């Protein structure tokens, strides 16, 4: 397991990145993707990790490094899974044949056992294709996600009757008909705090933008308009179900479709991981205090 430490002091968060270990945890094929982990030397008690999912350029390490400072200031680890093109070619769908959702669940269980991370509930972030994955994962497993942050998704699953994964309607193949599960989880998903981000200049239609009359009509032509429509669709659907929406849209000035730019120019890291309020106490414990492995199930003991 290659270990490395970042060497910068982050000027915004004030966190000393020498105190953050950044390393790659190797994966196990389809069962667990490899992941880049940014682990503060002192982890806040019960700290929810940030799970950060890369776009189709698969820059997991970059996400771990660029979120490390803000996360360290909160005593929170960052886990950036790496869904390889060979093993998870359609990871953005979350539940396509390669089932990236199951791989992430497996990774989280493994990290809980190995590193003692509190992975039962976590904040989830995704950029571009990672945002596609993240919102579908959160829709399928809303009980695992405390806060969902999506940046620059190319397209979304809408809370309408379009066939899954465009909407929640029946998919052509029953095997891939996860829209029925999303429909069941609709209320739980809409109750999540969801922050949507997109660069103000992320309005170009490029070769990676899924386009066509149907999707353009449903979602808009580019990432900017699609983020606006999706956010509005979620809010309206929440209100129709008497759920107070906690869904925000933030346009990042001067930013295009570039994660690093969104962080360095748009302050995306601090928006996803806002600093603690002044006076907040963050109690910490040494990292790598792995929890004991669980064994046999509990059976009622004899008197």
């Amino acid at each position, binding site marked *: 397991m290659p270990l490395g430490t970042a060497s910068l002091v982050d000027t915004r968060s004030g966190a000393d990145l020498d105190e953050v270990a950044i390393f790659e945890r190797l994966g196990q094929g389809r069962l667990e993707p490899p992941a880049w982990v940014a682990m503060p030397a002192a982890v806040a008690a019960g700290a929810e990790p940030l799970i950060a999912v890369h776009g189709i350029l698969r820059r997991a390490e970059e996400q771990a490094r660029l979120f490390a400072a803000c996360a360290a200031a909160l005593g929170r680890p960052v886990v950036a899974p790496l869904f390889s093109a060979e093993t998870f070619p359609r990871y953005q769908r979350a*539940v396509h044949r390669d089932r990236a*959702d*199951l791989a992430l*669940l497996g990774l*989280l269980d493994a990290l809980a056992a190995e590193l003692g991370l509190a992975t*039962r509930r976590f904040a989830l972030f995704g950029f571009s294709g990672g945002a596609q994955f993240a919102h579908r994962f959160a829709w*399928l*497993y*809303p*009980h*695992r996600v405390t806060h969902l942050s999506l940046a620059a998704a190319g397209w979304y699953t809408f809370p309408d009757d379009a066939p899954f994964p465009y909407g*929640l309607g029946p998919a052509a193949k029953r095997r891939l008909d*996860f829209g*029925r*599960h*999303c*429909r*069941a*989880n*609709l*209320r*739980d998903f809409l109750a999540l705090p969801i922050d949507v981000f997109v660069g103000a200049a992320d309005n170009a239609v490029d070769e990676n933008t899924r386009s066509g009359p149907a999707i353009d009509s449903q979602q808009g032509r580019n990432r900017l308009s699609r983020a606006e429509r999706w956010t509005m669709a979620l809010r309206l659907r929440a209100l129709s179900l008497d759920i107070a929406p906690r869904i925000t849209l933030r346009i990042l000035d001067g930013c295009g479709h570039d994660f690093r730019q969104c962080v360095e120019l748009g302050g995306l890291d601090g928006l996803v991981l806002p600093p603690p309020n002044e006076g907040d106490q963050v109690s910490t414990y040494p990292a790598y205090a792995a929890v004991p492995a*669980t064994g*046999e*199930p*509990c*059976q*009622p003991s*004899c*008197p």
Partner: protein
Amino acid sequence: MPTELSLTRTLQHTAKWSFTSRRVKRDHAVRLERDVARAATGDLLLGRVALVGAHRRLQLAAGRYADLYEGDVVVLACGCRYASEQFEGIASIDPAGADLLAGGGLVGHVRQAHQRMQPPTRILPIGLLGNPQNRILNVRDYALPARRGGRPPLVVGVLGSAMNSGKTVAAASLVHGLARAGHAVAGIKGTGTGAFGDINAYADAGATFVADFTDAGLVSTYRQPLAGVEAALDTLLVHASAAGAEVAVVEIADGVFQAETAALVRSPRVHRLFDGFVFAAGDPLAATAGATWLAGVGIVPAATTGLLSRSPLAASEAEDATGIAVLTREDLRDPAGATALLARVRAGGRAAGTTAA
């Protein structure tokens, strides 16, 4: 009559202690009561295998099968059994010979049997086991402390159209899917005949807590008063909650027409214990009849499952007839499917997305 010393030696070194006797402290057994005809439900019987019949193996307290041989000394629990595809028997011990009613170690008298069953394994009673105070050892006396008034946040019942309709597979599959989705799950066998197969299946599936009614002092729920079965269920759910279970999957044995199951499902107290149910059926007609019967007692299953789900055509017929989605065992084992089912249960069955349409 064996001396106290030889009895102790037999019980500790020779006898095969059955699953249903597993909670009993063996060193409490120091006497034999020869009048076996006075045996009551739950009393422990020491006997010898006279003839190996339908049950060729005994489920041991240790959690494994033991082959049975004629002459084996066994510790069994007197009780009743209801199994439409095996035996129906009652808690009665004939001093001249008794019947092994179930592989989990239930002994009594067979009253009727499925045509394909061989004659039961015959047991020659030696005596009822007694403690130093001359009291017959009874499984009830070693039960978990009775409790009431608590339960895991979510409780899902698994009902079925009949024995072997797919309930245990459904329950274990749901346990697995929920555990994989990150829930702490209890797997509980709420009614039936004491046997390790079900709770072992729940444990293998990832349950963090497993128990059955034998843990609450009942060797079988057949011919038990409703209040006793309800109390056992209460106790098991309280202990599951204390063990940290967030969800309990509770399998109810046999079909909904079976007397104790029907009474249980009709009970307002039980309605309050469960958040929802899934229904396992063998074919579309059973699914439809079951849904209709359950609607009559105020239950709309969150899903249909069971043997019929293996056939896409049968599943479609059932969905068309009932409007209730059919889930396969793969659906239940899938953490996404299990999570969605839980949402449907919380929403009261017919939430958005529940129906098959």
